[in-house]
């Protein structure tokens, strides 16, 4: 019996709270914009991560002959904000993926794994096609990463060919 009274109370309590506190439903546009923001956020996170990863591939590919100095150079001159942005992008992407229904319908670990793999592959493809280099020379990233990638600093500290910044750099091979 007491439970029944409680049950009846809930309806009146809820409706009273709605009336007295003037609780309003959020407008439909709020949810539409939310979905749109989540979608573009996901795309942006993925593109940013892929781009940053392609820069990492590029930096490692053009690492120079003096491999013994590579780690020192990496520590001293590498643009640490690039992997940081890549990690932030991946994290944001994973968090946004959780908003979508398929993320729990499927195995979420597999969804995350596929997402990270897709970003790594896209980053590799971007690097191989030379798009990263082109973007870094012309795009908005030029100011941030250009000087390091094109003036002989960064990973090219070991480059003694003098051809730095002149066209697409071929990776060195150990002979």
């Amino acid at each position: 019996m007491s439970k029944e009274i409680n049950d009846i109370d809930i309806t009146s309590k809820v409706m009273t709270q709605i009336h007295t506190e003037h609780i309003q439903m959020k407008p439909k546009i709020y949810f539409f914009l939310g979905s749109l923001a989540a979608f573009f956020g996901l795309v942006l996170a993925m593109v940013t991560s892929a781009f940053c990863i392609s820069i990492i591939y590029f930096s490692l590919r053009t690492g120079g002959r003096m491999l013994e100095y590579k780690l020192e150079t990496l520590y001293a001159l590498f643009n640490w904000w690039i992997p940081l942005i890549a990690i932030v992008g991946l994290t944001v992407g994973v968090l946004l993926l959780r908003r979508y229904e398929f993320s729990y319908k499927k195995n979420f670990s597999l969804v995350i794994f596929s997402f990270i793999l897709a970003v790594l592959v896209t980053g590799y493809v971007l690097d191989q096609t030379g798009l990263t280099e082109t973007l870094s020379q012309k795009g908005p990233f030029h100011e941030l990463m250009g000087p390091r990638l094109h003036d002989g600093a960064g990973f090219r500290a070991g480059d003694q060919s003098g051809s730095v910044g002149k066209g697409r750099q071929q990776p060195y091979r150990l002979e």
Partner: protein
Amino acid sequence: MSTGDTQTDETLVEMVCTQDQELYALLVGRYQSKLLRYARGILRDEQKAEDVVQEAFIKAFINLRGFDTKKKFSSWLYRIVHNEAMNSIKKYRQEIPLLETADFPSEENIEDNFIQKELSTTVTTCLKALPALYAAPLTLYYAEEKSYDEISDILQIPIGTVGTRMNRAKRLMKQLCQKK
């Protein structure tokens, strides 16, 4: 009989959003008992369960226009209650008190009622000892009569995981009940 009494939940949601907000009382009325029972099963505290359900109804009302009426309203509502209950557990991380009464209604005769009561008392006692992770799918399946698909929607876990948790929950229940 009022306008919304014969409507489906989803149609009623449409009507609340576009015509009359007062019709929301009908939706609350339809689910308050079920949701209270579910929240009690997870929280094992009458007052907290009531607070959680009330809060869940308010949240559902605020976000009602975000609900996709092509989907099942009950699953959406149970999910809100489940999330609220989980938040409440996290908030008051303490030993969960035991339930004072069992809530397994039966319309059988007196003898059946007695057996049923004995059985439900035993089941409830075992269920009390079960972690919320396993108690939730078990309650949804047996007490709320939800399908695996609906449980998957409510708990936001894959159907396979629902099956796994159900099996583990049953095994745990068996062990717990045999100990009693």
